[in-house]
């Protein structure tokens, strides 16, 4: 099956990332399609999370991290002097491995982004909260508890809240770094179906250590090994007729 032609949302060409002496990503060239759910699989330490964080420049926070090569969002380079990192991160949201709601009320968590980017104020914030909590399936459960601490809800609700927080600024891209790894299997399935729903409206890039999850939810799958992007293509192809021997070994459980 040939790759379906599609609009490129994110693109890298000859991307190399170093942490000090460690060469974390090696010459990665990739195209991430718009409004597609792309899963990144591979063994631990292969550079999946590093690749993810290239796109919102969260790697900038790591001392000694160097990024070389072309990285583009909508054809615009991300690693150029003068790039507005705050604006970039508004456009490219992120959901972390461990749910990290702020120690504020549920309401304040959801409206955090709109507040700091001055997108809404006063009563509009209430509407934002309802819309975003509704989108992640939390509104009915939490609408009477908006003033409660966000630390009092279940881990699954926390992760949904973090997703609601991320979409409250209406980003184009959502980066998700193993969003289900700290959740139980039932919560995992429910978050997965939420991700499927969201992929109709957002470009989603999700790191997962769980190959079944990648197979279940993603349109495209990328396989990283030792910092190299071995293969990136439609999920069905990658799992059933991989081009590379190493991919085949990995998805059939040959190693890893």
């Amino acid at each position: 099956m040939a790759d379906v032609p599609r609009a490129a949302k994110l693109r890298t060409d000859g991307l190399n990332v170093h942490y000090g002496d460690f060469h974390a990503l090696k010459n990665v060239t990739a195209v991430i399609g718009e409004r597609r759910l792309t899963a990144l699989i591979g063994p631990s330490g292969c550079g999946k999370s590093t690749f993810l964080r290239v796109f919102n420049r969260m790697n900038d926070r790591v001392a000694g991290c160097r990024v070389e090569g072309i990285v583009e969002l909508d054809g615009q380079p991300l690693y150029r002097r003068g790039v507005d990192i705050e604006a970039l991160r508004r456009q490219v949201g992120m959901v972390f491995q461990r749910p990290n709601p702020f120690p504020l009320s549920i309401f304040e968590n959801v409206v955090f982004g709109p507040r700091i980017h001055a997108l809404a104020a006063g009563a509009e914030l209430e509407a934002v909260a309802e819309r975003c909590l509704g989108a992640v399936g939390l509104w009915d459960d939490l609408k009477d508890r908006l003033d409660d601490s966000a630390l009092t809800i279940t881990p699954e609700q926390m992760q949904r809240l973090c997703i609601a927080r991320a979409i409250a600024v209406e980003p184009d891209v959502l980066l998700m770094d193993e969003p289900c790894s700290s959740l139980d299997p039932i919560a995992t399935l429910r978050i997965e179906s939420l991700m499927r729903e969201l992929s109709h409206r957002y470009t989603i890039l999700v790191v997962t250590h769980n190959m079944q999850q990648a197979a279940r939810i993603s349109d495209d799958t990328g396989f990283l090994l030792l910092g190299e992007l071995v293969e990136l293509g439609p999920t069905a192809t990658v799992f059933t007729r991989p081009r590379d021997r190493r991919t085949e070994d990995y998805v059939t459980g040959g190693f890893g």
Partner: protein
Amino acid sequence: MRLPDKVVERALLLLALSSVAVLASIAFFIVREGAPLIYRVGLSNFFSTDWHPTAGRFGILFMLVGSLAVTVGALALGVPLGISCAIVLGEMAPPRARRILKPAIEILAGIPSVVYGFMGIVVVLPWIREHLGGPGASGLAAAVILGIMILPTIIAISLDALEAVPMSYRDGSLAMGATEWQTVRRVVLPAARSGIVAAVILGTGRAVGETMAVVMVAGNAVQLPHSPLDPLRTLTANLALEMGYATGDHRAALFATGIVLFLIVLSLNGAAGLARRRRRPRPRPRRTASVAGVPASERIPPSPVSDP
């Protein structure tokens, strides 16, 4: 030979309890020496403005006011300075600057208070006299010196509180596109709030209790200070100045002053402990109706804040 764990445990427990015993005996002795006098002269006399120990009149109100005044002044200076310093150290300064600044602040804590007093006499007093007027020795001078002296306490404990804030909060905020300052103000500070409140309370306790530096710069006149430039006397200064020659009821009155100080410091420390234990996010200041379509004018107005 190996000591059995049980023996070591008991021995350590005993040693730990000895510090509690010291506290208890301090409390016992000052109460035994001071409480009968308060009982004899009555609370209203004890908290009156009439301090004439030779005439048997023991009102400590002016000193109490003096203590409160210099403490408030010290906090006005030390709290903003200390918290800003902690934010810079904990959130913004590059590691190299931290390696220099942090030990410097620790040294600040180790300087004897008499040295602060000396600095007050040679630097602060002449400056106030020349630029602001008055005798120089004043509540303001004491507040300035105390404000600097409480910095190490406020900075160190605030810094602990900031460092205890999980990195994931900062990551989450920055990943939302918040600036570093927005992250500090909207996420890190609220998360560290209880610890910072504890820092302020412990700094207050230190300001109330400080004696030597205050004696050296406050002027020590037993009077109601009408301006920050007036000399005043604090409770601690009164103890230090008069204990040397006091006898009889006068001595008992000073112990009674000690009871007051002990209670103030004890309750401040208790409050700090409570503040540290409580970890609750601030409620939303204005929770209006939850239905999004309702116009703002029909919503429940915020409840007026009642002044205590």
